[in-house]
């Protein structure tokens, strides 16, 4: 007999996610993903200065705190046909790069690890054996028996107070926990070390952008951090040296801790390489322009579409194929809720029709989420590190191919295991490694350009709104840590007439479409074994493998009229 369970709140994510699922004979047979928070930021943006939009959209999300600013200024630059200086492009790449690295690191150690690591079990580890384990997997500096004894004592004293704080009611002793105590102790040490490292390396954003979270440095037309080797108020040799130091720190941690940890933990959980694959449709819009032509040309990370796991056929992205449904979302369409609309033709009209809170279950036969259902060529898609790595791998991108093959080789498995919960987590680690190794290139390019005497950081030609046409429209894309992101803006008489965003978690957390086809979260949960329905740890594992970001995902799309795409790509 089917038994319906609810996980709400899904914790260790950004925002408000609720999962309802039916379980039969210890396996998930159906699932519904619901976003339970709505703000309506796009409505708030109406009639405001388009140059301000990045500041508002940045607050879609404070975790991936740069991504919506970037998509926003790119959308306005696209609408007004503004090319930005090379310095600004490289500064943007460095800011995006460290965002990606820090975000993935926090995700693995602080959001995802507690699904696999039993903190309490670490107390029965032998510190000597833990030291041997650490020394066998990498040359990392913190590897002595004394060090692990210290960590164990600290955790022991903490646990002994009986006040476990954020570790209260964790899944300690759960039958799905497989790591030996020594590996658990090592992971707990790395949890604490990563807390420190993430705080340090994100200082790159403070140097380039004044602060983190929410760096205040973006400008339509460029960046607001000056570049001048002979000024103490600009990016100079000293600041570049500081940035290099933080890149080196991040690189050391990723190479000696993050990657070895993934390789050490994965063998205990290899069954998760066969769970959580879902639809196996992947979308990447590409990013990190490297050439003089600027965005959107010469991407380091390529764009592409993969359907049904067919790596032999990577198709180009055509943004006209994106539609959105509201059949199961708390919105209404004027032409009826059964029809999909391209974002340019999207409509307002939010209308809550769910049960009045407090409620026990949502009405999942009808509308049940604040997230819309985006589809590409009428198919649900997955976006994120796995999509990017698969597209790049299938296209033969050298760094990605080499690193993916290295990881697969060490685990003794083939690329088919990537279509899974474990594959998603491994792809994020692979991306972190190639990203941190890439970042110096962008910094070098900035330095080389400064050497030529070019200190430009902003294109002022279109800064004054009086230079703008009375009507303009455009869109900007970005490969954010969590996946493909798009912003659309319509400018009329120098103000925003309409603003829209289709974000990574909208794709992944989508509810069903009119044909009843599940979103990717929902589909990925089907077939997942649940050892204890009272403590459904396994649901968290697959949900966390996506790194959900719900505040980003919930958006309101406005009426946009019929527009023609202006962007050079997609």
């Amino acid at each position, binding site marked *: 007999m089917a038994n319906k369970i609810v996980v709400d709140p899904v914790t260790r994510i950004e925002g408000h996610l609720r999962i309802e699922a039916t379980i039969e004979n210890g396996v998930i047979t159906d699932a519904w993903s619901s976003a339970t*928070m709505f703000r309506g930021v796009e409505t708030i943006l109406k009639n405001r200065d388009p140059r301000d939009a990045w500041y508002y959209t940045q607050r879609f999300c404070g975790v991936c705190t740069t991504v919506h600013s970037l998509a926003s200024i790119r959308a306005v630059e696209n609408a007004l046909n503004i090319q930005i200086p090379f310095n600004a492009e490289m500064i943007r790449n460095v800011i995006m790069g460290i965002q990606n690295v820090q975000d993935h690191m926090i995700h693995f150690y602080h959001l995802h690890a507690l699904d696999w690591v039993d903190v309490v079990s670490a107390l029965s580890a032998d510190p000597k054996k833990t030291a041997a384990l650490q020394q066998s997997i990498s040359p990392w500096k913190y590897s002595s028996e004394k060090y692990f004894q210290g960590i164990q004592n600290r955790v022991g004293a903490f646990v002994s107070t009986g006040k476990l704080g954020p570790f209260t009611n964790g899944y300690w002793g759960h039958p799905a926990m497989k790591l030996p105590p020594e590996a658990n102790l090592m992971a707990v040490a790395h949890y604490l070390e990563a807390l420190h490292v993430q705080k340090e390396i994100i200082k790159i954003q403070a140097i380039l952008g004044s602060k983190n979270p929410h760096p205040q440095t973006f400008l339509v037309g460029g960046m607001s951090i000056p570049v001048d080797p002979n000024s103490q108020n600009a990016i100079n040799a000293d600041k570049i040296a500081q940035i290099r130091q933080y890149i080196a720190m991040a690189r050391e941690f990723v190479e000696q801790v993050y990657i070895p940890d993934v390789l050490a933990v994965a063998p205990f959980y290899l069954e998760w390489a066969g769970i959580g694959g879902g639809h196996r449709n992947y979308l990447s819009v590409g990013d990190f322009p490297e050439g003089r032509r600027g965005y959107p040309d010469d991407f380091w990370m390529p764009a592409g579409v993969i359907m049904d796991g067919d790596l032999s056929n990577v198709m180009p992205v055509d943004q006209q194929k994106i539609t959105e449904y509201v059949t199961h979302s708390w919105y209404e369409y004027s032409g009826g809720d059964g029809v999909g609309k391209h974002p340019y033709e999207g409509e307002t009209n939010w209308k809550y029709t769910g049960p009045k809170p407090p409620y026990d279950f949502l009405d999942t036969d009808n509308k049940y989420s604040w997230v819309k259902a985006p589809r590409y060529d009428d198919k649900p898609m997955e976006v994120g590190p796995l999509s990017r790595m698969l597209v790049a791998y299938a296209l033969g991108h050298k760094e990605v191919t080499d690193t993916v093959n290295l990881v697969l080789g060490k685990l003794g498995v083939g690329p088919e295991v990537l279509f899974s919960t474990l594959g998603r987590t491994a792809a994020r680690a692979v991306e972190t490694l190639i990203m941190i190794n890439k970042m110096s290139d962008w910094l070098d390019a900035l330095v080389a350009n400064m050497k030529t005497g070019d200190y430009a950081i902003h294109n002022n030609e279109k800064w004054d709104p009086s230079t703008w046409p009375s009507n303009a429209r455009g869109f900007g894309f970005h490969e954010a840590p969590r996946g493909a992101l798009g912003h659309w803006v319509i400018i009329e008489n120098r103000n925003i007439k309409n603003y829209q965003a289709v974000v990574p978690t909208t794709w992944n957390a989508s509810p069903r479409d009119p044909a009843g086809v599940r979103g990717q979260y929902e589909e990925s949960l089907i077939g997942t074994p649940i050892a204890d329905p009272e403590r459904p740890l396994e649901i968290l594992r697959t949900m966390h493998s996506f790194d959900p970001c719900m505040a980003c995902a919930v958006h309101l799309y406005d009426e946009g009229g019929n527009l023609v795409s202006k962007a050079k790509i997609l």
Partner: protein
Amino acid sequence: MSNFKEMLAAHNISRRSFLKYCSALGAMMAVPAAMTPRIAAALESDNRPPVIWLEFQSCTGDTMSMLLANRPSVGELILDHISLDYHETVMAAAGDQAEASKYATMEKYKGQYICIVEGSIPVGADGAFCTTAGKSAIDIMKHVGGNAGVIIAVGSCSSYGGLPAAYPNPTGAVGVSDLLPGKTVINLPGCPMNVDNLTGTIVHYLTFGSAPAMDRFGRPKFAYGKRIHDNCERRGHFDAGQYVENWGDSGHREGWCLYKMGCKGPASFHNCPTLRWNEGLSWPVMAGHGCVGCSEPGFFDTMMPMYGRLPNVPGFGVESSALRIGGTIVGASAAVFATHGAVTLARNWKQVREAKEETREITKETTDAEE
């Protein structure tokens, strides 16, 4: 505390190794070895205050700020200083297990726990714009906040409604003190809040047992007592009439005043110029972008457009005009909030404009009279 000893035993931790830990801790704190028994006693009594951290209409930026804590670090904060019993973004438990943890703390420490709130609370649609475990943010806030010893609103959204409450406030978003008018709420606005102000507030509360002195907007004076303009490192350039005219021009590269590029520092009260961000590394003006006024109530309406200049300011700065700039905009922001309240404000953007016009008129009259 026999319970504590039992737990030590249960986890195979000898008294000896525990005392060893205590002496190591003492060494770290640079106190004499004779202090070890006292540290052990303090740890054994374990008076870490329980904390319930609620997230509503937030972007999680304040949580991310918390993760950057450095004095104490977030690890020390969680392990040694507070008992963070409920925080959706970091806690191990989910669903029923998470809820159980929250209720256990509420029951055991009724009237004593610290409630930290991130994000605004939407009062529209019977609370359906934000729910957790099927319950509305309104009910959760009233229940958890109503039984707390003290409430700290972190960030501009929980303090005053913030971004969701900006015109036309589609969801009826309000700040904590709007929902719980009788309770003591310490507001730590900022977008996000600066974590040093949070750790400062917690340490103040633990040390003195009461909330710090606050201004009329519920902000601690130790962090929001001074105008940004008055402590700005570029103030000399303002007084000397040296302004950035274009992004990337020589004045911009040389760190001149950003007033003409829309800086709202003269109208904003926050310790950014002295405290800075990310362990004192930088802050917006230092990195070449004007202040947005993110610590002021309703700034998403009253301080925008971002690159617009503050009104009624003569081009070249002298002391009196600088003071007048501050007075003017602070006047507008305060007048709107005092007269109409956050909810009304958000629903009537027109009123903001009218209030701005009124203030402009008043300032003009004052200026004329002075002249």
